[in-house]
């Protein structure tokens, strides 16, 4: 059985454009649900799915791609993909997640910390100016 995690868009269109003809279970989730990673992982492990697809409107505009790779890895799934209403797809491979996505996310996180500090002072300065 295939699991389609519907993040946005129309499930029928996504299924049709990506030619998913097998037995499919669809769960609708919000991007915010990624924060409750334990609950989310439970959903992914609920049945013995042999593949997980994350469906969205348009991959070009999709956020949190790293987390989709990572959840696939944590759920023990070997294969999966991020797919959209236009038929585009990004393959999820655990080896790619370990060797590329995780180190890249660590880099993003460190960069994010730096940005946070810089913007703390930028916002503080602008707050002071706005009050003048």
């Amino acid at each position, binding site marked *: 059985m295939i699991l389609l995690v519907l993040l946005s868009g129309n499930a029928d269109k996504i299924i049709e454009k990506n030619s998913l003809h097998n037995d499919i279970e669809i769960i609708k989730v*919000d991007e915010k649900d990624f924060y409750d990673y334990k609950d989310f992982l439970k959903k992914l492990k609920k049945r013995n799915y042999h593949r997980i697809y994350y469906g969205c409107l*348009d991959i070009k505009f999709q*956020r949190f791609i790293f987390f989709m790779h990572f959840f696939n890895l944590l759920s023990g799934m070997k294969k999966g993909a991020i797919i959209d209403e236009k038929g585009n797809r990004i393959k999820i491979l655990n080896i790619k997640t370990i060797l590329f996505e995780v180190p890249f996310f660590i880099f993003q996180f460190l960069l994010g910390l730096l940005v946070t500090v810089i913007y703390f002072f930028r916002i503080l300065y602008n707050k002071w100016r706005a009050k003048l």
Partner: protein
Amino acid sequence: MAGKIIKKVLILRTDYYGALREGGTVTISLGPVNSLLKKGIECYFQSCGINYFPPQCKYFFVKHSNLLLNLPEIYNLTYTHKAAKTAIRVIKDNNIDLLFQFHSIMNYSGTLIKRKLGLPFVLHVDGVEYWAKQNWGRKLFLKNHLKWAEMIQWDTADIIDVPSVKVKEMIAQYSSVDLGKVLVNPNGVDADKFHPNIDTHNLKRKLLLENKFVLGFFGTFGHWHGVDILAESIKILKNHLNNFIVLFVGDGVMRPQVEEIINKNNLGPFSLLTGMIDYKSIPQYMSLCDVLVSPCVSNPDFDLFNSPVKLFEYMAMGKAIVATDVGQQSEIIINGYNGILCEERSPESLAEAILKFYKNPELMEKCSSNARKDAIEKYSWDNHTQKILDAVEKIL
């Protein structure tokens, strides 16, 4: 009057809406743009998402940083300066007279633009983001950044355009901003697109709705939409009505709960869930319905503060409306005149109001025509934009 002074407007949307083409957040920007274009005002739109505007509106795409797309709070921070930089160039190149920004988290682009160029700055605020993140978000990161960015924008804007009195109260609660510049201006509807004279014969046949009493819900199945309460009310309605169906149009986080209620109680024959449909098709689907329902519920610690676009669309369709007695719905719907109000979170009260319409076709007729009249006279996007232009004229 004001339209003669303001000739060119830059509309800045800085939130991450991605490829979203439908829903309230699209309507609240598309409606005013279409109305401004009708008034002969040139519109320029800058955003980070898909362009859903007519070709007369010049569009500028400014992408969020790909590098930070897994860290939402942080990419919103960096977007402030990126968006401001492009907007300043667009304003200079096109001699734009007015900046209109949709408020979004961690963003103060409007402030940077206003300081650099000095043009009038209208900030549209749908709600206090700090409050929304605290109450609706899973976790609040960088709360000082968020709160301060919001305050910077409120302090700098010449006019803060809010859709309801509740939002004005929220702003007062979270800041010391001069409330004299806060303009309460409900959302609106395009009454030319949403009207009662739509042919639905084929669609009715396709969906097997012929000769049925059709109830409709349209929306994003959010927590505050109360769509689960409507599903619960079917259990009561089936004891009183023979040939009826509830049409659920839309999708969202509450859909699994709705489906569970329907499946658990064998309500399948009385309900139809279409999922998301194109925005263009919505008037036709609304036209299928005899009664349109807005079962919104209050927030846990604040009354419903939004201005429900869907309610105005229902009204413009000239349909009988049942709405819960919460937030702005209580101000817009006059019980027995342009709709029926019912208690929130009460399937019994909701079912009772629907049955009232079913048993009284004259009341239905009266409420439908009054609702259409009110939509045109009070709640059109033309009225909405005119209020903004008038307010801008006063400060020029």
